[in-house]
């Protein structure tokens, strides 16, 4: 009886030590899989917005992801008029209107192709479609393109930094 209670104590003592060790090593293992500081630090891209031409879709790169930049013509702007969802996504830099968005389908992350004639995007993976303002117009994508955090600095757009315009979009649920 005395023996077994001693063994019981030893078992519990070992269990406590092993438990602390297990939790600590799980923490270390989790942290070892986190993105590295160098990966996080490389997360900013500056775009000069005077370089873009109307209705020509340019793909930039930010955090390894494609960024769609489309300078919208007056025609496209007229089409958007009266559609509050599309208007809310518009980014104005020095009087020019842009669609700037992460060019990954919000379904599972394929890159939709811009179709110049139709003026919209089609995803080859699962057939999702987006219009020129970045709104989803055909399932499976559950929402329009995500808009990367941006800050307007004169003619320039800094991606990766959250400016007041982006913050307002986020707060209003325009983007995630």
């Amino acid at each position, binding site marked *: 009886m005395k023996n077994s209670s001693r063994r019981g104590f030893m078992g519990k003592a070992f269990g406590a030590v092993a438990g602390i060790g297990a939790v600590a090593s799980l923490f270390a293992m989790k942290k070892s*899989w986190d993105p590295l500081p160098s990966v996080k630090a490389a997360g900013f891209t500056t775009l000069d917005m005077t370089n873009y031409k109307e209705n020509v879709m340019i793909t930039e790169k930010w955090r*390894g992801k494609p960024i769609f930049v489309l300078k919208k013509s007056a025609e496209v702007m007229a089409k958007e008029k009266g559609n509050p969802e599309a208007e809310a996504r518009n980014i104005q830099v020095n009087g020019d209107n842009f669609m700037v968005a992460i060019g990954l389908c919000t379904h599972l992350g394929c890159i939709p192709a811009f179709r110049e004639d139709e003026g919209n995007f089609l995803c080859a993976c699962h057939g999702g479609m987006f219009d020129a303002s970045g709104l989803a117009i055909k399932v499976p994508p559950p929402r329009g393109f995500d808009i990367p955090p941006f800050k307007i600095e004169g003619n320039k757009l800094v991606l990766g930094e959250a400016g007041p315009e982006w913050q307002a979009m986020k707060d209003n649920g325009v983007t995630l």
Partner: protein
Amino acid sequence: MAHFTKATSIKDWLNQRLAVDKVEKVMMSEYWIPKNINFLWAMGMVLVITFALLVVSGIFLLMYYVPTVEGAFYSVNYTIMREVDFGWLWRHIHGVAASVVFLIIYIHMFTGIYYGSYKKGREMIWISGMLLFVAFSAEAFSGYMLPWGQMSYWAGMVITNLFAGGSLHADGLVEWIRGDYVPAQAFLGRFFMLHVLLIPLAIIGLIGLHFGALRIPHVNNQDGEEIDFDAESKKYLDGDKAGSKVMRFANDFMSKDMMVVGIYLIFFFYLVFYNYGFAMDPVNFDPADGLKTPAHIYPEWYFLWSYEILRPFSVDLGLILFAFAQVIFVLLPFLDRSPNSVPANRRGMFAIWFWVMLVNMIILTAMGKLPPEDPFSTIGFYSAIVFVGQWLLLPVITMFEKKV
């Protein structure tokens, strides 16, 4: 200390220290297999041999493969394919075996379903087998990342995005799995580790469990007959080999088994030498490019059926049904409420259920390969509904099954 005597032979010396005779009996000559089985019972051995081929060819690939985003594509497509003598052989064996192993796994699975080999004490065989299926799927996926071609990259992107859980938007979890915002060096490094170490270790452990699970209930037979293995093996050992319903695993059953393995290997190496193209997607011969999605992304053929269940629905419903399809087979022993463990053709409604399931999964596979447009997406949509419906119906139709 145990008592040791001067050994009379090498075998006796080993016997005293390792009990090799006893081990041989337990594992081979007195491991009893029913006589009334057919070639479908050889699929387990075919899988063991295919796994061995994967391990050996993998060892040779591992010696030249470079797990970096700059070097991976080149090391596979130039170093291994052009420079290493017979490098092409290891790569083609590895690629073909990775594809064919799933064909055999599906045959093995559907054999089990048809003959009711997941019932009456054989539940753990089925469950460990399904865990092996999951481990093999993870192994196939992680291996597919390694050549770092366009399909590797985009399959990696799409599959890791599944972990965002649709509307849950667990983007932090996805970035944690990748170690980056997109698949990059951290991602390739960890999937390389998973592919060559952690998952193979898990597979070897699960194979041990799968074999262990067979010991007590024994192998099923093609008539659903309940055999008294103790009585039948005694009959065999007493000399009535013809009258006994069982035979030795080795060499009796093994000789048949290896015959099937031989035929399989001829077919296998025919594929390796003359028809390996099906296992090598042309799109994956373009190096990974994060700014260009291939025109049409599809998984390898063995994942197509579950991919097709994901595809026709909105993202959340698709994910839920996809998760359902992934786990539901594990629950088969508990969803089948019938006490009969006999072949499907003697189980009435269940026979129809079985063949509809098999054909429907082939249809889903075909639709998953075709582009997501009508009529394929409509057919895929209804097939996915039939798949889910069948599983919901299974407990009902088996509950009303007559006892055979």
